[in-house]
């Protein structure tokens, strides 16, 4: 959507005017203070050294006054630090890389599909068309149980997949950070569609022999945005408990959720969801301040469940034959757009520089008072963020967001390449994208990252991170062996 400016906005002079305006507004406070400081300095210099000395001696100090005032100063400084919210740092994170034997190239997927759905050629064709346009590559992975013809989703194989994904990610994280599992104070595991009793969090506690007073939580059913919800819960807990750390594990277990029927709206998730998982270590300890990679600035959650259409757009139900699957409605993109708008309205004032906020406010006032036909001003989020991690829900989601937020192809590159290499790994996809940006060497100290995730319900959740230190290109990680092949051009339609 073009901003409400006349045609000659393309001219160079106006571009400089706009830049100048932005610089002026954003650095207003500094620019206002500088002349004040200069005047003060001039006054002090004019007084001359002798006068300053006499001024100094006239202030009579005795011991009591000195003690009293120093006590006050110390108290002030302490109060200042106590009442500030505790910063939450991301020490490090690790993503699970499935072995090559689990790969599902298009040919394998279509071969399986033709055999399993041999009586439903229309459904097979539908799956092929989806795969061609999906934006997925040939290296995405599915768990072993789904490689069977027909798939064998038992509880044991689901547990096996969970153990493989979660334990590998945690092992990587433990090696990277050197943390001992016994030192973990808070554990949050989120996995939408597999929830055995005892929970996956209990499984992690059992495997790593964690302490008996650990605070563990197991979230489920919250969709692809559950990763950000888990980070929000960890942040709230870390505000209450000083000197603690939190381990957040985000994953989606594919085995029990493979749809075995033939309804088209339910076959879509089979084509898109792939194996993946991530483990994240958060902390509020002062000692971790220097080695932490990121600092959490904001988490904004928007839930549109009150609207019936939004609620039903991603829905698990039985098909007419009684087979359970997740149906995706056709209005998914429109609903995602609405949820995003809601989320932006809340996050905008928190992150946008003053210049953009003023423009947005003026445009809002103008639309309300003068002429409702004015096009709404879309704030330029590229000013506020350096990197964007958009949940790799599918090609359509990334396209839609690129259009709404006016992003360039470089900004959405991380999302598109993650979708190509790993598929839609649900709540952990944001971390694969972060890992891509780091692997490309683009993450610098002071950079701001915006993670946006959508989920069933319908939710739109965002998290804003600030890069705390320079991040060297990782020597291990999910992208290490293939980063040189990226970015690659993913055609609109891949002919199978």
């Amino acid at each position: 959507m073009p901003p409400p400016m006349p045609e000659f906005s393309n001219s160079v002079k106006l571009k400089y005017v706009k830049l100048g305006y932005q610089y002026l507004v954003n650095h207003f406070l500094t620019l206002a203070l500088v002349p004040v400081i200069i005047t003060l300095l001039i006054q002090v210099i004019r007084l001359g050294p002798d006068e300053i000395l006499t001024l100094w001696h006239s202030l009579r100090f005795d011991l009591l006054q000195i003690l009293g005032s120093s006590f006050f100063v110390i108290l002030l400084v302490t109060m200042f630090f106590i009442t500030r919210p505790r910063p939450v740092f991301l020490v490090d994170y690790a993503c699970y890389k499935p072995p090559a034997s689990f790969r599902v190239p298009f040919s394998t997927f279509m071969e399986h599909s033709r055999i399993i759905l041999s009586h439903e050629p229309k459904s097979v064709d539908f799956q092929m068309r989806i795969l061609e346009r999906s934006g997925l590559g040939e290296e995405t992975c599915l768990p072993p149980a789904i490689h069977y013809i027909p798939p064998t989703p038992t509880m044991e194989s689901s547990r096996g997949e969970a153990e493989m994904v979660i334990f590998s990610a945690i092992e990587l994280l433990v090696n990277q950070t050197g943390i001992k599992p016994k030192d973990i104070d808070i554990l949050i595991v989120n996995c939408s569609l597999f929830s055995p009793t005892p929970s996956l969090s209990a499984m992690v506690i059992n495997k790593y022999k964690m302490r008996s007073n650990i605070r563990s939580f197991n979230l489920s059913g919250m969709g692809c945005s559950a990763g950000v919800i888990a980070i929000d819960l960890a942040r709230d807990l870390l505000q209450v408990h000083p000197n603690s750390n939190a381990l957040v594990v985000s994953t989606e277990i594919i085995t029990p959720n493979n749809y075995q029927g033939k309804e088209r709206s339910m076959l879509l998730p089979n084509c898109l969801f792939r194996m993946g998982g991530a483990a994240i270590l958060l902390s509020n300890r002062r000692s971790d301040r220097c080695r932490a990679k990121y600092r959490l600035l904001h988490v904004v959650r928007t839930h549109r469940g009150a609207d019936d259409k939004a609620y039903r757009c991603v829905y698990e139900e039985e098909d007419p034959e009684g087979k359970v699957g997740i149906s995706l409605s056709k209005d998914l993109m429109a609903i995602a757009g609405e949820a995003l708008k809601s989320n932006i309205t809340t996050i905008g004032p928190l992150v946008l520089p003053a210049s953009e906020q003023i423009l947005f406010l003026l445009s809002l006032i103008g639309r309300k008072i003068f002429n409702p036909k004015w096009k709404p001003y879309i704030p330029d989020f590229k000013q506020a963020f350096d990197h964007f991690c958009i949940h790799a829900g599918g090609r359509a989601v990334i396209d839609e967001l690129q259009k709404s937020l006016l992003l360039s192809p470089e900004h959405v590159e991380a999302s598109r390449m993650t979708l190509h290499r790993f598929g839609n790994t649900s709540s952990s996809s944001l971390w694969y994208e972060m890992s891509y940006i780091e692997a490309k060497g683009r993450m610098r100290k002071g950079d701001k990252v915006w993670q946006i995730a959508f989920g069933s319900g319908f939710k739109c959740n965002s998290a804003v991170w600030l890069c705390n230190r320079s991040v060297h290109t990782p020597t291990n990680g999910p992208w290490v062996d293939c980063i040189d092949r990226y970015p690659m051009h993913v055609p609109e339609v891949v002919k199978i």
Partner: protein
Amino acid sequence: MDSFLLLLCFLPVSYLLFKLFIVIDQKRHQCCYILDYHCYKPGDDRKISTEFSGEIIRRNKNLGLNEYKFLLKAIVSSGIGEQTYAPEMIFHGRETCPTFEDGITEMDEFLNDSIEKVLDRSGVSPSEIDVLVVNVSMITSLPSLAARVINRYKMREDIKVYNLTGMGCSASLIAVNIVQNIFKCCKNAYALVVTSESLSPNWYTGNHRSMILANCLFRTGGCAVLMTNKVTLKNRAMFKLKCLVRTHHGAKDDSFSCCIQREDEQGRVGFHLDKTLPKSATRAFVDNLKVMSPKILPLTELLRFSIVSFSRKMSQSIDGSRPVINFKTGVNHFCLHTGGKAVIDGIGQSLNLSEYDLEPARMTLHRFGNTSASSLWYVLGYMEAKKRLKKGDKLFMISFGAGFKCNSCLWEVLRDLGDRNVWDDCIDNYPPENLANPFMEKYGWINDEDPSTFKVPE
């Protein structure tokens, strides 16, 4: 110069006072109050008697005579009465082939009933709720049950919502823990905790001994609890949370696997309850009490106990009885998870509780059965209906769950309680003279029969 100094001091002093005010204000708003709660009671057509249970067992083709005997014995001696509630699909004979819809409908019935009632009674509208925590262990759906609640009651967009699953029978207190932590960060908030259990999709259709027991012991139930940290509502609140302690023994392998959902040899999914369950439970309970006792017992009792144990150790006398800490010095009422008769007896013995103390839990087990995570609230309802709860009383809640977890917390009663609740229609019949199962005589023979000549009597 003096006026300049005065001004110089005024600014930091006022800033200091301002900061102090913020700290004190924050502390005031960090308390966790229960405004109201409502337990779910299905219609009378969902009551399941021992006789009907026997029929259900008999119509299961996979169960032989030995299993029939075993199960009936378990039901008869379980302490569960004749008026507990079962999910609807059992009455349609579909327990062996439940559909996904059955599970959702079962949850819908509860969600549409209890939440509306608790919000109506306290006069809070759904759009005022700031935090929603739903815990139902054994069902996952997309969107989550929490999203179902938000959709049904049209709650706000910026609501903080969490959906917990898989956390077993002690999940109620875990949900309260989340709310307690969020209340320390957000001021003036309302929170809704919704807890229940899903039975329909989890019926075990096999014949493995350790797994068929779960079918017979769990019953339908649920509770919606409205909590707040608004200081202005302190006079209307029922309870205030004093402290909450969670103990997780998942690190021990036998504790982790004593209560676990898995497949049997034929691939049928069921809930395995191991023989080592009581031992794991006791261990977790003792560890939990070790942390909890210093927080809730008065100093005099703690001193007395430490002196007695010390002198016992020093004198090395082997007179058999170990010193028992007297919890009644710090706690007036005990709210126990109704896991079964053995659980209640076990806790009663460890804490040296009288029949009066154990009565609420026993009666809840009799009237409502083991409703999993929500059982604590039914026990609380009994105490309230019997007008036992007076202002200033301390109430101790204990629950156990798969994993193995033991969670406990202490509530302070803020005003004399005695409102109408789920026990209304039958509280006058409790406690009954005889808790024994009326079918003890009919099925009592199962205790004596020789398995080789066993024949099912008509």
